[in-house]
């Protein structure tokens, strides 16, 4: 077993045992929320981390899928499965359209188009009251009971979310290590060379965009099941910004970075705020601190620290060159 596989197995075991260990329904629910946020952040990571495409409108996919599924299943009389399939399919189709528009530009232009499209969706959700309930949102949604398992139970829902999370992470991991995923990273690092080599940079980016939209929609589905409620806030710019911050803070371009980032933000927002009135300030300070001390994000930063620690122990005293070898290739030198 490779050490990294060992880590993954240990991580998985911890996640599986978690509800037994914590017991309290509240914390189990919190973990479910982290998983949902982690799926959303991981899907955004496909664009930000692997594709070098900084999107500030990723809430659009989660939000749209959430609205679709609540509307279809609770208000238009479709079943859960039909509602879910249509929601994900519809949202993925929307991602295709958005991708076609947004990928006309790159860098800050790309960021702005994604932001603008997100704001437009938010405006629609807010204004189209007859369909969306306006700022009051849509409620009256209950969790499904697939195979007789009642997802209203916190632990059951947690495992449901965990399965989806595992699938998402595995799928994204495989995607990134497929030749296609490699070519996406190629478009990030060497767009000119890639097109010179005959790759169609735009189509690679577009397909990845749609793929990210798909997993964003899946996260939105879970969001709707979890909260049993959807309102324009899920589409708001703050949700997109938070998701982006999760990715960057945890470590863009790493598999587990967005997961750690999601845990950080969800915990600070929901737990720290119970003890610290000025938790927003704390959240901001944490972000600044991460940039100052671990500019590539928590996961690369911590693993570097870990490696440095091991190196110093191994080389004991005779060490002269510190950790130049341990430095991973910098992630920052892309897309100026």
């Amino acid at each position, binding site marked *: 077993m490779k050490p990294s596989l060992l880590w993954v197995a240990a991580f998985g075991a911890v996640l599986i045992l978690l509800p037994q260990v914590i017991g309290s329904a509240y914390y189990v629910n919190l973990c479910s929320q982290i998983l949902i946020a982690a799926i959303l952040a991981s899907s955004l990571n496909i664009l930000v981390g692997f594709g070098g495409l900084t999107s500030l409108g990723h809430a659009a996919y989660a939000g749209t899928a959430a609205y679709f599924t609540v509307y279809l299943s609770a208000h238009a009389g479709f079943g859960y499965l039909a509602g879910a399939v249509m929601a994900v399919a519809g949202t993925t189709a929307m991602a295709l359209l958005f991708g076609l528009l947004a990928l006309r530009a790159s860098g800050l232009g790309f960021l702005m188009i994604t932001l603008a499209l997100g704001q437009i969706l938010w405006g629609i959700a*807010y204004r189209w009251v007859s369909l969306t309930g306006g700022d009051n949102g849509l409620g009256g949604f209950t969790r499904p009971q697939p195979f007789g398992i009642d997802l209203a139970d916190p632990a059951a829902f947690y495992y449901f979310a965990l399965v989806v999370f595992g699938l998402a992470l595995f799928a994204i991991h495989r995607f990134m290590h497929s030749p296609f995923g490699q070519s996406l990273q190629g478009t990030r690092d060497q767009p000119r060379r890639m097109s010179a080599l005959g790759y169609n940079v735009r189509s690679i980016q577009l397909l990845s965009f749609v793929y990210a939209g798909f997993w964003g929609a899946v996260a939105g589905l879970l969001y709707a099941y979890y909260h049993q409620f959807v309102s324009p806030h899920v589409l708001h710019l703050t949700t997109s910004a938070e998701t982006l911050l999760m990715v960057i803070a945890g470590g863009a371009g790493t598999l587990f970075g967005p997961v750690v980032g999601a845990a950080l933000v969800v915990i600070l927002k929901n737990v720290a705020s119970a003890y610290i009135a000025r938790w927003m300030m704390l959240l901001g300070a944490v972000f600044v601190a991460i940039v100052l001390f671990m500019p590539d994000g928590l996961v690369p930063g911590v693993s570097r620290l870990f490696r440095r620690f091991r190196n110093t122990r191994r080389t004991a005293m005779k060490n002269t060159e510190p950790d130049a070898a341990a430095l991973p290739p910098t992630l920052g030198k892309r897309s100026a």
Partner: protein
Amino acid sequence: MLHRGKALSAALLSTVFLSTLLPPGFASAQSDPIKVGFMTVRSGALSAGGRQMEEGLKLCVDQYGGKMAGRAIEVITADTAGQPAVTKTKAQELVERNGVDVLIGPLAAFEALAIDDYIRQAKIPTISPSAAAEDMTQRKPNPWFVRAVGTSAQPYHPFGEYAAKELGYKKIAVIADDFAFGHEIASGFQRTFEENGGKVVQKLWSPLNTPDYGSYISQIEPDVDAVFAAFAGGNGIKFLQQYNNYGMTTPVLGAMTTVDEGVLKSMGDEAVGVISAGWYSAANSNPGNKEFTEAVRKQYGADPGYYTVGAYMACQFLNNALEKVGGNVEDRDALMKALRSVSIDSGPYGKVSIDDLGQPVMDVTIRKVEKKDGRLQNVVVKTYPATSQFWTYDQKEFLAQPVYSRDYQPAKK
């Protein structure tokens, strides 16, 4: 280091172990403090209202010396950040982790709606100190919910009649925040105003984050008798200042929140003369309100408004109900029943009782902004006593119609 860690976890473990051995309710329930979960907003755009709610609640709890019906009151405060998803998590935290006996909050209607289902599931008595969404006590009543404030439209049924009959206005333009609260206020006003012979000739809906009302003000038809401006939060300040800047002289009618005491203190002369309606005014001289406003002024240096009085009264409702059940919060059905039959004779609201859907029947006052004692105040001009959320309409017929909305009735040219 290691040793200390071990000792600590051993201690922790044994406590957990012991506590599972003890029978539930071992420490006699009646002497335990009553836990009140308080959902407010401390960060983001709604934080001013959230702070005022905290002040109102604290004042009330302090006035009772931290004890109600012989039991200590423990308030556990949660910051919902004004976001529905966080509100839900916080409600769960308060109920499931902190084990609160009753909830007070949240602030905004969209937050309250986000936890509507949860309140039912958890069967947790909830007192709303602010959220005014009509349907929560109308077409979709929640048996575990009672409101300590008016519904969005409650004061504007009498106000529409007042504007038509007593002010003699015939044509009015409406401008309101484009969200459910604004829609409901405007519709309630329009309904009675038009039933009494007036006409709303124009309805402008400005997004909540409108940077500049100039382009709306320019659209107001020049021949209207008055402008009914329904705003919440800081938008009233912005609108009235810009309205004044544009040299507009058409009289302004306001919603309760347009010239709420919480923002009125920051306003200038542009607010003078604005007539509004509400279920509370700090300047009301009814017995019980004087002591309340004086206490708030002494403690916090400002007049109480919508949020302060809402939370204060939510706490008074709780006290009233606790007295009835002898402090026994463990019987939630009885507590809820008591909350649903709160009846208070004097206090900031004057006389108040609760209808069968959990909504207060209370005095509605028509107020006019005047400068008195060196500060702007909502001086009471007229009182409509014991006003129900259904006004003079038949409850059944009222509920048979759809809830007030942006498209309730179009403006009539």
